[in-house]
């Protein structure tokens, strides 16, 4: 009996130790795609709270570069942006300035930084989350004037849930925002941030292209317009935002560009 108790105690101890170790290492939860259900118009504060969730989410990826109350790794500190936004461009209100900065980040690049921000937020987040994000940023030192009607939120819900739209390679390439940074004449892209992809099929195998999309910092290209490409330039979220079929379509399409 004593031995059986000892054995039982030993087993429980081992199990508790393993579970304890598992609880000590970083805890990550993978959320299901959120449906933004809004009944009635949200107040500015409610919208800003929603925007804070978007800001902190891995899907938006803001914190990968920006800081809030401290310098970011590759992009400006956003503390106080709500107060300053209205004064940046004379013709734009704070809300308009912030919205345009999110949709077309290269329009207003803060001095001392490069334009490395992906131009895909509207596609990946949808209008409702984007508006919530604007509200959150406006709330950083400023008054939140942004509003979102229930109808507008509902209209953008389906769009955001669908991920990056597109069936053909050209559609996917455009909708995923690749055109903003890369040059590829066959789809009319003339981006000047990332490498020219006109001959990518001659340089890389399909597997390497796939890995370059999923892990862009793994093998950095040497032919960005301003010199060797920098780590962190290309977003790393395409593994999540592209469906498997879209990814493969894109890989096959790029492998054909300049292939011998």
């Amino acid at each position: 009996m004593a031995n059986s108790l000892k054995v039982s105690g030993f087993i429980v101890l081992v199990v508790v130790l393993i579970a304890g170790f598992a609880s000590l290492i970083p805890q990550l939860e993978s959320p299901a795609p959120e449906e933004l259900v809004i009944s009635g118009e949200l107040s500015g504060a409610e919208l800003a709270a929603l925007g804070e969730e978007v800001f902190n989410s891995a899907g938006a990826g803001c914190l990968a570069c920006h800081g809030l109350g401290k310098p970011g790794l590759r992009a400006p500190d956003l503390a106080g942006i709500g107060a300053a936004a209205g004064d940046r461009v004379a013709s734009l209100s704070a809300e308009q300035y912030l919205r345009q900065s999110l949709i077309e980040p290269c329009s207003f690049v803060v001095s001392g930084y490069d334009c490395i921000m992906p131009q895909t937020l509207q596609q990946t987040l949808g209008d409702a989350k984007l508006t919530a994000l604007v509200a959150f940023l406006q709330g950083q030192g400023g008054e939140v004037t942004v509003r979102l009607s229930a109808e507008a939120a509902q209209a953008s819900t389906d769009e955001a849930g669908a991920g990056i739209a597109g069936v053909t390679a050209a559609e996917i390439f455009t909708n995923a925002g690749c055109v903003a940074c890369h040059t590829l004449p066959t789809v009319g892209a003339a981006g000047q941030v990332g490498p020219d992809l006109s001959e990518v099929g001659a340089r890389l195998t399909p597997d390497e292209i796939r890995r370059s999309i999923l892990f862009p910092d793994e093998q950095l290209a040497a032919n960005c317009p301003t010199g060797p490409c920098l780590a962190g330039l290309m977003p790393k979220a395409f593994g999540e935002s592209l469906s498997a079929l879209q990814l493969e379509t894109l890989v096959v399409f790029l492998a054909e560009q300049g292939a011998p």
Partner: protein
Amino acid sequence: MQASLWPSRRAFLVGTSLALLLILAIAHPAFAQGEAPPSYRDFPVIGSRVAVWIVAQVHLMLAAFMLGVPMFALVVEYVGVRSRERRYDDLAREFTKLILVAASTTAVFGALLTFLLFTLYPQVMSRLADVFLPTMVLYPLLFFGEVFALYLYWYSWDRLNTRSGKRWHLLIGLVLNLIGTTLMFVANAWLTFSISPESGGQPLYDQAGAFTGTLWQAINNATWWPINIHRVIANIAFGGAVVGLYAAIRFLNSRSEQERAHYDWMGYVGNFIAVIGLIPLPFAGYYLGREVYGFSQQMGVTMMGGFLSWLWILQAMLIAVIFLSANYYLWIGMGRIQGGERYRGRIKWLLAILTLGVLVWATPHNPVVTAEEQALIGGAFHPLLGVLGVMSAKNTAVNLMILTTFVSFLFYRRAGKGEPLPFGSQGRTAKIVLIVVLVIAVLLSLAPALYVLRDGLAETSRLLRVGLSGLHGLLLIIGVILTFRDRGKLGQWIILGSAAGVVLFFGIYGYFVEATIRIGFSVYQVLAVLSALISTTAIDVFLFQGAPSLGTIAWGKIPARAQYVLILLAVGFTWLMGLMGYARNAIRQHWHIYEVLQDTSADAFSPTLGFAARVISVCVLVFLGLMGFIFWLGNLSEKKAPAALRPEALPAAD
């Protein structure tokens, strides 16, 4: 030594109930056309997901016991017939009795799982039944077949214990295992289809979500075979670990020297089988991982670099526990063998290699980190340790750990033996077998190089791959030639050293080539190790056949801590099985059927590792509690002392 009939009757009744339940569930009005069932139903307190999770995981653990232990029993019975030692036959019988008791418990959990799935997730099960209905009817029939084969195997033991009858009894055991394995393959098809609804590169659903494939395509989906292979091997290892657990508990409660000797020996056999299963398991795991990537890069990224990335650190820790336990048990075990002290000084080196291997394996490469953590380490990867986190380092570590474990086993085997006899005295069979094994090993090591050779040797990496494989093949031949010239031990070390050299070379060279080439290096490492294990084992068998003994093995004279090591091994295996169950399901994320049927329930999110660990721990404790109950029940009918070391010999099969 017949067990009472009641567990068998109960298993039959529960099995019948399971079949009826499955048929009733499929025939439920919810599946009738025109009436849509609710998407989900709630389970009180713990929620539907956790309820299904716990029942499914405990059922899987019991099923692994039900499949792994008959494999163990059949092998042990066969060894008994070949060696004509009664103790092997008794060991096989002792465990078959436990399977009989476990069958009913397994069936109860299977029935409960069916009930929960069809009531809590009716639409999901309806979608699966649309595709798999014929196999859902086949499944209970196979279950009956397994139970009947099990009855036959158990109740015919005495009647077929004759010279000719033993052959038939082994055949029944084989049929039992074949039916059990088929049963698992059928259930694996349902599971893997939900992960990878694609066959031969062809998606099995169209854009509108309609199933466009055939039943066979659904069964033979992208991850079916990798999971089948992984589970068969894992069940062998798990069966061995549970045998070790049983032996350890019985040893600690033994009241006589004879009992202790019997259960000590049983524990050794269990550990041996567990190690045999453990060695190829990482290779099977890599195969599964490769197929997951092949099916969906996105799923692969989620698995290895996404929110599950920290899971592999926990897995590495558990595998470290298992490897170290298995080795430590062998090292302690050498203490009861006269002559074992000769190898004591070398243990520290083996421990050092294993520890280094564990540290490398547990090094993360690109775990998900916060912006603050990223700023602290200066990038996505740690500047120093990140180098050890890549697959080149991990493959090298695991292959060296496997070689080290094998060396521990070699030391254990030869601990009680003196210098080998001249190889010429082993007869013609030894020579023929060794040459056949050598041919297989050389072909294994050269196969990938021949594939490369076909496309020429223009690149340096091609030349090196072919050259090194050729060199390893040559050293295999030299090792066997040395054995023929009575220098077998030297031959073994040359072969093992060559394998370690190949592993290290490709591990380091992997850092200097592109990723697409580097991925292929693991094949050379694995095949160099496998060819070395096969050839060295064959040499060892003949080398020490008939070698003078330095003394007897003092079975039973082993410290109690060795038994706790066996218990640790079993707990580690069971927990790891639960963890892999979580990983397998979590890679689907918010999909019931990946990218076909979305999970829209409140449980659509994938929980944290800490939460999963708590659920897995509950499953492990429930399973081990049930095992304790089964062990206790199985021994209620045992009246006489263990049959270990009984002198009478078994009849040999024709």
